């Protein structure tokens, strides 16, 4: 349908000539921002991430390769050759060290990405680059900014865990692919269950006086090493085994093992893992949103 041309009518706007939707009024734009603000912020977060996409891809591809080659094949030669070591799979079978290790590596990768993006990036948002303040001057609320940040981090974690899972399949480290792919999401839960409380902490910091280095050294590292990642938690003495019990990494890894090769475990325990991870995630997110609101609107 074409409009009748007449001299009385004003010249057509560019978007009308192109047959596009008419632009929103400022009021409509604001209403939209209020509704989808978190997605808008996540969109910006992801675009900013493209500024360091080389690093993102390198960690998402290089790290799995190196760990799978180094630990999954090199160390596995020693461990699988040792008769004392056997990892129980489903139905009384045993699985190889590589299969045992796989879910732990995916969850670890999620944790590492999360610990990076919920520390320095947050400090960048509040202080170094002040990326939170522009959106906060628009109709987007501070709670939506917090949520948008979390969505952005979630996308990066999923990229990492998804690629990692593909590598595991290529290395033949997944016994049950039908359920195994779900470890992409249980690993994400490890990242979020650790990342949300960390985000709540980071959003209170006014200055980095080495707190992030301390978090890395005294929390992330011990969690990585004592969460039954490279060996069953039971190999450790009780004095340090509790680190695994409180570690999101251990709970997520155990879920991944059940999904990947049918690691024998009572269903109640599986439920405990899930609930623990969800409680940490939701609790941390609530705290983080509160801190964002206090700091940006206060």
């Amino acid at each position, binding site marked *: 349908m074409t409009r009748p041309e007449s001299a009385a009518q004003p010249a057509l706007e560019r978007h009308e000539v192109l047959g596009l939707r008419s632009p929103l009024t400022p009021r409509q734009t604001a209403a939209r921002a209020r509704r989808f603000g978190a997605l808008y912020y996540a969109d910006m977060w992801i675009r900013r991430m493209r500024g*360091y996409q*080389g*690093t993102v891809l*390198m*960690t998402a591809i*290089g*790290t799995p390769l*190196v*760990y799978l*080659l*180094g*630990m999954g094949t*090199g*160390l596995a*030669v*020693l*461990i699988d050759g*040792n008769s*004392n*070591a056997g990892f129980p799979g489903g139905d009384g079978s045993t699985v190889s*060290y590589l299969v045992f290790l796989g879910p732990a590596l995916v969850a670890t990768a999620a944790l590492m990405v999360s610990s990076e993006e919920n520390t320095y990036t947050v400090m960048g948002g509040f202080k170094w680059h002040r990326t939170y303040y522009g959106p906060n001057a628009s109709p987007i609320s501070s709670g939506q900014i917090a949520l948008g940040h979390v969505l952005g981090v979630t996308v990066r974690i999923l990229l990492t865990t998804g690629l990692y899972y593909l590598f595991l399949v290529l290395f033949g480290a997944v016994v049950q692919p039908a359920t195994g792919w779900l470890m992409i999401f249980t690993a994400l839960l490890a990242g979020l269950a650790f990342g949300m409380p960390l985000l709540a902490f980071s959003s209170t910091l006014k200055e980095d*006086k*080495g707190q992030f*280095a*301390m978090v890395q*050294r*005294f929390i992330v*590292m*011990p969690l990585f*090493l*004592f969460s039954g990642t*490279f*060996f069953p938690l039971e*190999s*450790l*003495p009780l004095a*340090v085994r509790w680190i695994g019990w409180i570690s999101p990494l251990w709970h997520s890894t155990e879920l991944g093992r059940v999904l990947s090769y049918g690691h024998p475990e009572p269903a109640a325990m599986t439920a405990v893992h899930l609930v623990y991870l969800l409680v940490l995630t939701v609790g941390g997110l609530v705290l983080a949103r509160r801190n964002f609101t206090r700091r940006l609107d206060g």
Partner: protein
Amino acid sequence: MSIENRTAPTVLVPQDRFLGSLYGRNIRAVIARGLKATWGTNWSIMVSGFVEPVLYLVAMGIGLGALVGAVSGPGGQEMEYANFIAPALLAVSAMNGAVYDSTMNVFFKLHYSRLYEGMLSTPLGPLDVAMGEIFLALLRGALYATGFTAVMGAMGLITSPWALLMIPAAVVIAFGFASFGMAVTSYMKTFQQLDWVQMIMLPMFLLSATFYPLSVYPEAVQSVIQALPLWHGVELLRQISVGIFSWGTAGHLLYFVVMIVLGLTLTTNRLRALFLK
């Protein structure tokens, strides 16, 4: 202007002395400044740096040791897994400390705080700056190596008095990495390029016969690993830790001596190219 000014320039640098244009004979000024700056801001981070290899030693030595059992060490003798990985972890920690100090820290001082420009506008030369920075990194490395060796002793992992020599050997390894790291940093333009350093160190850490003997690899892979500096560091410390030496020991040491000389030459040239054009 006046003729005197054109014909009699003031010579500030004693160019008749060996390396006179590069070296102001005042490394201690750079070191003193570094110590003061460290103590003023982040000594707790510095001191706690030795925790990481200790955590690896406890976790892997006990947990993984239960799975692996005994491993064949230098001279083919069987050894406990914790004894096997402890010297390797010390070598890794020497590498990590030296590389972080000479890349991240140096990069920051080079491009953000512009510390070296200030230093080089005094009678200090690029060699003073390079040697001073490297000395600081080595001091830190020596501190960590001593702490780690003490923990090894406490865990009952020291079986030979030779093991004390691991401390100076770790410093030699750190020297090799630090002198090279600084040269590499001088080519870097952005922060993101530092991530590539990380991506070189992680494979070296995991693949350099740190957690298992070289013999698990096929022949072709073995020779690639043997070309890497960390493998020489790991082997050197592993031999020292049990006091079993061979011609290989001298070879490993020689590798690091060459690395140090090459790295220092390159670093000094680069600093001169950057600042004294």
